[in-house]
């Protein structure tokens, strides 16, 4: 799950080496925490959060395979 988010984030930012992801799960929820370089925050969030929304729905689809709910936290 976190590999997916990391891959997408790395493909979108200017500093892929600073992309970090962590995954925690409890019961039926997967939480992926995404950290990117400060300059790149806007790139993973996008205009009016469009990119973040798209990443979330892709993550949701991936989590859906294991019948889990998902959460994406973009950390500052």
């Amino acid at each position, binding site marked *: 799950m976190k590999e*997916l988010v990391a*891959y997408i984030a790395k493909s*979108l930012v200017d500093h892929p080496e600073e992309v970090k992801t962590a995954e925690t799960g409890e019961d039926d929820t997967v939480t992926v925490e995404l950290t990117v370089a400060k300059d790149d925050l806007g790139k993973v969030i996008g205009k*009016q959060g469009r990119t973040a929304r*798209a990443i979330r*729905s892709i993550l949701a*689809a991936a989590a859906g*395979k294991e019948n889990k709910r998902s959460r994406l936290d973009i950390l500052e």
Partner: protein
Amino acid sequence: MSLEKKKFYGKEVTDAIKKACDEFGVAQEKLDIEVVETGSTGIFGLIRKKAYIKAALKTVAVEEEVAKEVVVPRPQKAPSVQLAPVEPDEDVSEGAEEDVHLEDGEESEDNGDDLTEIAPALLDTEEEQISQENLDIVKTELSRLLELMGYPSQVQTESSGISVHCCIQGGFEEALTGQDGKTLDSLQYILRKIIARKIPDRLRLSIDIGDFRERRQLELAEKAVELARMVKEDGKTQVLPALNPSERRVVHMTLQEDKDIRSRSVGEGLFKKILIYKPGKGKKPGARKHHSPRGQKVKNSKPDAEK
């Protein structure tokens, strides 16, 4: 920016920008535009203010334009938000996008969607081809994404002109489509972003799963016709739930021919609802605030409704 800026006036920012484009003979993205006054149509035609912008050719764009001119002389391209060419210099393209966006907000009600609809037609006439190499990049990226999602699938790509169409097959159709195509649209959006960074050339990308797009279009068209029938029957305004631009387009196109009813989009942002209503009736009690006559409500400050 070493070039001196010229001043342009117009009824609206859009007009002023258009004048600037004509003057320089280049597309809007190639101009460095500074909006000084947004202008306003005033109230009841009073207190009209002209829009006022300053514009100059972008320095990066100048070189590029010259280079392009040699290959295919094209004096002007239609400005478009979605199809803005990917420029090698990230900052420049970002700037262009903002300019266009700003203009969007200032547009009058009528020409909201026009620009984006005309643009693809113009672009189609350009004789550019996508190299096999780039096609492979698209295919690899999409396959990789699907694999990471846990839905490894076959991806087929086909191209014509500058558009690339990807088709996904392999047993996970439902999961990858999502509700109303939400996942599919997200995938398409992310893939476009990724590809825009990987391939400097401009290309139009679309993804389909099975025949989902076609099915969805038919479904929407049918629904639109059905709602139109209901509107004609009892005169009550019907609403289609929030749709994305391409889906709205399908609905509007379907209902365009029918002179007894009108359709229009309302709302803000990417997803807007579509109202289907009888023309000429003005405000109806059942229709609520959607199409109140001018001046009835406190002025709606966001003119993003479109036809």
